[in-house]
């Protein structure tokens, strides 16, 4: 059986990212940059949430800074933070050797599964706000959860056909293990001519200040109002059949909901209602996105003659929009 040979351990946090990017690039993924908005996880990136919808094939990998306001600890906790990195891989359709591909990525990071105890332990995933669920595992490395591995079954309320496979690496955890440190802020980000730069040098002040904002300063009445506004904006954009901008309004609303949660401004029953409101939006966006790709003839299917047709229909769409303007 052909397997990647065991690579040298990445020495720094950024090396870890480079190796993963390189590995997944070698395996055909589009290497993307983070989505430039506040999101709770790599799943919210359009390259996952929207691209998992519909029949078009897609492979992408990227780092996604993720914000979880309630997880902030003012920089006091060695491994709990309100802002961290995920490395996300999405491949549609999920390849038959998806698990092997993942294991090879561990080998490329210097983990030999012949020496280490690597396990796939059932952990099914469900996102109430995204109207999405999938089945899969958390991956254990010597008892530590280092990744999530999921076969998407439904996204935005739509059945996934084909199924996308998603891998999410917890970069800080992996790095802490690789560098054998107990405090995330002690991680070596890189060693350069100006000396060692730690994770704390990069993020500690941000962690402290953002925790204060999340827990103590975020303006609840303003956030509540903003939530309503983004909800409205999303619906307006959906009416204009602009799926991608509408989706950004969902991201805004979702992050605001998380902030309100951190401020403990939402009671239990209200909480369920907020989640339902976000889910309603993401479902509508998912359908709008599907419809928009369908209208374009699902360009990435690249069937015979599809490209030309798509180009034509895209031009048509643009012409209509210009005429409207």
């Amino acid at each position: 059986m052909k397997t990647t040979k065991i690579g040298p351990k990445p020495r720094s946090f950024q090396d870890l990212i480079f190796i993963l990017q390189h590995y997944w690039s070698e395996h055909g993924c589009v290497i993307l940059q983070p989505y430039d908005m506040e999101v709770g996880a790599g799943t919210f990136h359009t390259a996952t949430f929207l691209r998992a919808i519909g029949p078009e094939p897609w492979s992408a990998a990227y780092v996604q800074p993720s914000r979880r306001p309630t997880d902030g600890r003012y920089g006091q906790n060695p491994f709990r933070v309100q802002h961290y990195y995920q490395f996300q891989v999405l491949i549609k359709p999920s390849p038959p050797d998806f698990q092997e591909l993942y294991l090879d990525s561990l080998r490329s990071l210097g983990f030999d599964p012949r020496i280490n105890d690597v396990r796939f332990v059932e952990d099914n995933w469900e996102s109430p706000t995204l109207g999405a669920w999938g089945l899969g595992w958390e991956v254990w490395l010597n008892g530590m959860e280092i990744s999530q591995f999921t076969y998407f079954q439904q996204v935005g309320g739509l059945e996934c056909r084909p199924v996308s496979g998603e891998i999410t690496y917890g970069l800080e955890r992996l790095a802490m293990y690789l560098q054998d440190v107990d405090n995330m802020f002690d991680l070596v980000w890189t060693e350069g001519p100006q000396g060692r730069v730690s994770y704390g040098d990069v993020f500690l002040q941000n962690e402290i200040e953002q925790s204060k904002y999340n827990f103590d300063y975020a303006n609840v009445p303003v956030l509540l109002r903003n939530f309503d506004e983004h909800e409205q904006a999303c619906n307006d954009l959906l009416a204009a059949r602009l799926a991608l901008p509408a989706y950004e309004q969902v991201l805004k609303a979702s992050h605001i909901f998380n902030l309100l949660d951190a401020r403990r401004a939402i009671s239990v029953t209200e909480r369920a209602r907020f989640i339902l409101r976000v889910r309603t939006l993401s479902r509508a966006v998912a359908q709008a996105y599907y419809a928009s790709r369908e209208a374009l003839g699902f360009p990435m299917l690249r069937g015979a003659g599809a490209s030309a047709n798509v180009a034509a229909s895209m031009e048509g769409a643009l012409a209509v929009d210009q005429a409207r303007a």
Partner: protein
Amino acid sequence: MTASVPRARIERRDLLVELGTEELPPKALRVLEQALADGLRTRLTQAGLVVAAIESFATPRRLAVHIRRLAVRPPDQLIKRRGPPLRASFDAAGAPTRAATAFADSCGVALEALGREHDVKGNEYLYFEGIKTGTATVTLLPGLLQQTLDALPTPRRMRWGAGDAQFVRPVHWLVLLFGREVVPASMLGVEAGSVSFGHRFMAPKALHIASPAGYAKALLTRGKVIAAFDARRENIRAQVEQLAAGLAGRAIVGDGLLDEVTALVEWPVALTGQFEPRFLALPREVLIATLQEHQRYFAVENDAGLMPWFITISNIDSPDPDVVRAGNERVVRPRLADAAFFWEQDRRQPLAERRLALDGVTFHDKLGSLGARTDRIGVLASAIAAHIGADGGETARAAQLAKCDLLTAMVGEFPELQGCMGRYYALADGEAPRVADAIRDHYLPRAAGDALPASGVGDAVALGDKLDTLAGIFASGQKPSGTRDPFGLRRAAIGVLRIILEHRLELNLIELIDRAVRLQQIAGIDAAAAGVSADIYDFVLERARAQYLERAADNGISTEMFDAVLATRPASLLDFDARLRALVGFVARPEGLSLAAANRRIANILRKSEPAAASLQPQPVVRELLREEAERELHDALLAMRAQVQEAVTAQTYARALDLLAGLKPAVDGFFDRVLVNDPEAALRNNRLALLAELRALFTGIADLSRLPG
């Protein structure tokens, strides 16, 4: 009509089915293994094949079944069929009709090959007798296997890639061998073959399986997989116990944990790890929960308590086990540090101070807050305490504190420690020990065979908790249907039964249920209360039936006896129990069955004459209208013992009451032998019906004997 045709020699071969998958859910693994084996056995048997020896296997990456000596085809069937009548088979000209040719076709023979048969009336029919050769097993197998796989009980099936196949997890290979030959088949997106795979890392190469009988050994020696679940489980237990002994301790090996760990590995290797001894200051349950629930480690203890060690089961025979050990130690440290932080943090606020915050936590959107629920439990618990002689003050306090630990950080992290943490925190706050114990105990019993609350205070709060759950969920129209029981109402009902019966608590269950229902803050509840309460009573008693019948071999109770008592709807479960046990003794004696038959007869007579009987119900028997001697004798006998029977019933000495009633047998027999109830004269008839009604009322004061089988 069919029958097996005896055959001299049948060729038999072993069958092997192995489905290779990505890692299966550990808690479902045994169920899947069993269902695959049972499903195949059932379907093969239905196809006429004898399945004598069947062995099943299950690991995270495979489900397998080995059946020994399966016949290569089911036995031939002797077929006998009667066709259409002869007169409908040929027309006037003697030409065969459609009915005749269709019958011949369905038998697979020419019309001329059919015989003739007469029935008892002398009618003549077309007749077929032949031998149906069984379809070859190898041909049957793919269909039977597919049906079995489709019917596996699995909570959620998934799809993967671009295919349409659905299974618990993606499927990678199928070994399907009948003898040494591959059965041609294709299912779940894979082609059947003879190639399996061993351990993911220790034996990654393709593994050819030469014969079904050599399967387990091939996996063990070449594949580094212990395929049989039980063998792997015992192997793990032995390793764990040996390592614990090496630490001069004992491992805490719960069945649930052992099963789960067994379902997570193919090649178990036990390793010990250490944690800082300072964490031993945490409550024992917290340490065990951290080690077991989060990490699936086995805790180790000696006579002094838990030790700062754990045993983990890895899935690899690592050339450098220290890497695995060190990794696991790294993981458990922050987990325990978290738990220690919660333990410190939670104790800074007394439990009682959290009570108010429960008002802001929704219990259920139709049933209000946890605070409201707490108050309802308090009302019920206090009422119960007053009846069973438990301390009222302590009961009220325990009820108020019972749910407060749900707001602690520790229970937030370890929901399974609810109650247990409440007890620790209450003790830390200086609450009375019995109050603290009752907080823990009010969740009891959690499962079959679980302990019951340790005190009357615990009983009172536990009953209040369960009755409120039953009342709330029934009142909001969500009573369980089929196997769905999301609120654990069956468990709650069994808890009520066990506490009352095993602790011998004399309580009016009907009143308590009614009280619990009326406490629900649901619009219009008072109007609906009677119906809801009756439903709950029936629901609880149905669980009682199941509990009694489970032990029918010991207690001699039958479902009819249960129905006989249930018909009287006793308010107290102890009273119910007493009636039931008296009935067992009564049925065993000779008069028992005969009087039961008499009761059925009376019930029938009264039912048929219902309008009349109903109108004369309040009327007593008129002595002067009793014309026959036999009816006067019955009346005398009745009057002679009525007071005594009623006295015995009041004293709940039902055996005595039934004993007295058994003495009526001669009089009852005499009545039915010599008296015609349906006298043409209405006054006489109605008087006799009144006599029977009185007689029956005396019996049904104990149990409705008419429900006993004849």
